């Protein structure tokens, strides 16, 4: 099936199927969403106005049998950061879109009236329908209703947060078991809400992705999957999930606690991956679960309550950290309940609890008040009360509303689960990322803490800028393939992994990329994204951390973030 660009104009409610421009042909995932946003969106536009565009793109290998290739990129100008944004997600949508022959889905314009719509994507293109029944409903109700209306289809949806255009609203993607995965960061759910699109259903029918050299592809995929399965990080991820990190980051003194005032959390053991695993087993949950078919790592899980009923799945370290250590809640059941609520409301489970931590510092709630967080999510955020909207617009919004100065954000986006004072490489990533603070943009934790891809001492400045630069370039390239970022652990350590991945791309398209081409691709993506941000009015002075990281030492190491602006700016020397 020939790949096409599917375009939806929400101003006049028309759709089209277009040939792929030559300049876009070699791109997928993040590389494609950022290329399209940079080409078609005015950098100075209002993110929630008709000039912004929401772009979905499966990765280069999505829809094939390549292991772990089911990531979906969503891109737009972000209403949270004002920068270009790419957020990616698991779930089945990327594979289904690719099988529709959809290289990218571009949603542009804005309806004049108050009506809401849904989209249906098939190999023939996109149809727009008016939607009434599901407006105001949470994501699980949408998924349930759609399963009766249109069984077996892929689903991309927004909850009430997206409808209300909250800057922390995410886009949710259904997983094979009706759970939600999220294009989490940067408020892309608000952009979808601003286009008045409640959900997108995807029906690939019998569509298949063409492979130029099937034998070569199969062979490379075998080598690739073997490298993934054989890496010890994959084994630990399958058993403990990403939450295996609570104890090691705590032990390292880099677990931001009590709104970033401490580097260790007393209750760490109770919210750790080890405790979570034991609890899941005791309650007949599933320690392993995949967010898309073909994942061989299975870092997701099904977490049940004490009676054995499912509370949540895809229960991630960063979300658990944010509600746990940052808000001082040491009750995993309350954290799981809050996680489920956020999946249903459709709001970022990093931004929102970090905003709660700032609200706790302001005295809106007490630190440790887990039932208070669940109440605020249900009664304030989901209903769009004034307090709910202040929190739903993110950590910086709460700081401004309540006059709090200890607000952990870069370019308005909440800093996640790793303190940049005690783990300095990640501070460079937070400062320089084209998308605001985001650990996934250049995960120096691998090398600073986990000893994967070498070792760089987290407490010294030496080597951190180079480390972050190399990882951000590699990550931008991986984010274009449709691959889950967790392939990076094997790619950093196993010399067979990356060549096999490149071989698969070559076999898929009948081309001859080399390792150098992959590096060039990553550099091109970062530079394209940065050029958009500069044109939107950002400067190097935005690549800084908030004041308190430079002035408030964090225990137990009693260190500050001590990079000068000039040192940070050397990041862009490539």
């Amino acid at each position: 099936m020939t790949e096409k660009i599917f375009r939806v104009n929400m101003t006049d409610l028309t759709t089209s199927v277009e040939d792929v421009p030559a300049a876009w042909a070699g791109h997928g995932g993040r590389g494609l969403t950022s290329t399209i946003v940079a080409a078609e969106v005015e950098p100075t536009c209002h993110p929630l106005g008709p000039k912004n565009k929401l772009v979905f793109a499966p990765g280069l290998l999505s829809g094939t049998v390549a292991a772990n290739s089911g990531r979906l990129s969503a891109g737009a100008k972000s209403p949270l950061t004002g920068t270009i944004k790419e957020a990616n997600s698991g779930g089945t949508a990327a594979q289904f879109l690719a099988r529709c022959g959809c290289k990218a889905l571009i949603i542009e314009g804005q309806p004049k009236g108050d009506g809401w719509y849904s989209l249906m994507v098939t190999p023939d293109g996109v149809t727009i329908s008016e939607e009434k029944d599901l407006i105001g409903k949470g994501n699980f109700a949408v998924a349930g209703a759609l399963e009766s209306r249109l069984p077996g289809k892929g689903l991309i949806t927004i909850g009430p947060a997206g409808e209300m255009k909250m800057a922390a609203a995410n886009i949710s993607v259904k997983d094979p078991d009706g759970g939600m995965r999220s294009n989490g960061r940067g408020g892309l759910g608000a952009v979808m809400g601003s286009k008045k699109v409640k959900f997108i259903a995807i029906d690939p029918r019998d569509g298949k992705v063409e492979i130029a050299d099937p034998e070569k592809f199969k062979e490379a995929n075998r080598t690739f999957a073997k490298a993934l399965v054989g890496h010890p990080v994959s084994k630990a991820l399958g058993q403990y999930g990403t939450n295996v990190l609570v104890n090691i980051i705590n032990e390292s003194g880099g677990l931001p606690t009590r709104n970033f005032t401490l580097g260790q959390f007393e209750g760490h053991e109770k919210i750790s991956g080890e405790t979570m695993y034991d609890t899941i087993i005791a309650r007949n949950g599933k320690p392993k679960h995949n967010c898309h078919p073909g994942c061989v790592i299975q870092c997701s899980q099904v977490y049940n309550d004490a009676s054995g009923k499912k509370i949540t799945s895809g229960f991630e370290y960063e979300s658990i950290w944010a509600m746990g250590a940052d808000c001082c809640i040491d009750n995993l059941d309350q954290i799981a309940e809050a996680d489920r609520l956020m999946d249903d409301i459709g709001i970022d489970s990093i931004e929102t609890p970090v905003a709660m931590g700032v609200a706790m510092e302001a005295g809106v709630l007490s630190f440790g008040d887990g039932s208070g967080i669940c109440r605020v999510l249900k009664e304030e955020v989901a209903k769009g009360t004034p307090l709910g909207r202040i929190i739903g617009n993110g950590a910086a919004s709460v700081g401004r509303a309540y006059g709090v100065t200890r607000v952990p954000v870069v370019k308005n986006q909440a800093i996640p689960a790793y303190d940049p004072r005690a783990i300095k490489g990640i501070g460079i990533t937070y400062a320089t990322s084209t998308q605001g603070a985001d650990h996934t943009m250049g995960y120096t934790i691998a090398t600073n803490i986990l000893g994967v891809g070498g070792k760089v001492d987290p407490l010294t400045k030496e080597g951190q800028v180079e480390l972050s630069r190399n990882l951000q370039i590699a990550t931008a390239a991986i984010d274009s393939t449709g691959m889950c970022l967790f392939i990076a652990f094997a790619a950093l350590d196993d010399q067979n992994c990356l060549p096999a991945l490149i071989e698969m791309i070559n076999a898929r398209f009948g081309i001859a990329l080399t390792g150098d081409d992959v590096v060039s691709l990553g550099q091109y993506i970062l530079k394209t994204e940065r050029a958009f941000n500069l044109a939107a009015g950002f400067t190097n002075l935005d690549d800084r951390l908030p004041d308190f990281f430079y002035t408030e030492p964090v225990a137990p190491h009693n260190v500050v973030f001590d990079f000068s602006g000039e040192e940070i700016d050397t990041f862009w020397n490539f």
Partner: protein
Amino acid sequence: MQVTVKLFAFFRDGRFKEEGREYPPGTTVGDIVNSLGIVRDEVGVVLVNSRQAGLEAAVAENDAVAIFPVIGGG
């Protein structure tokens, strides 16, 4: 000398979470790993008093030694 040893993930299986243990002066991290029957190649990260350390690092009285298998996430 007294050393606090902390184990994580599957290193806890059949062992312990945290224990105060006696070792002779001059003990290294590697000696502690051996004393616990942990395969050296399975050790991913060691933190001594919250700082990264190698298997050759010497351990002192009252140190806290945390031993992790190869793990990741993010």
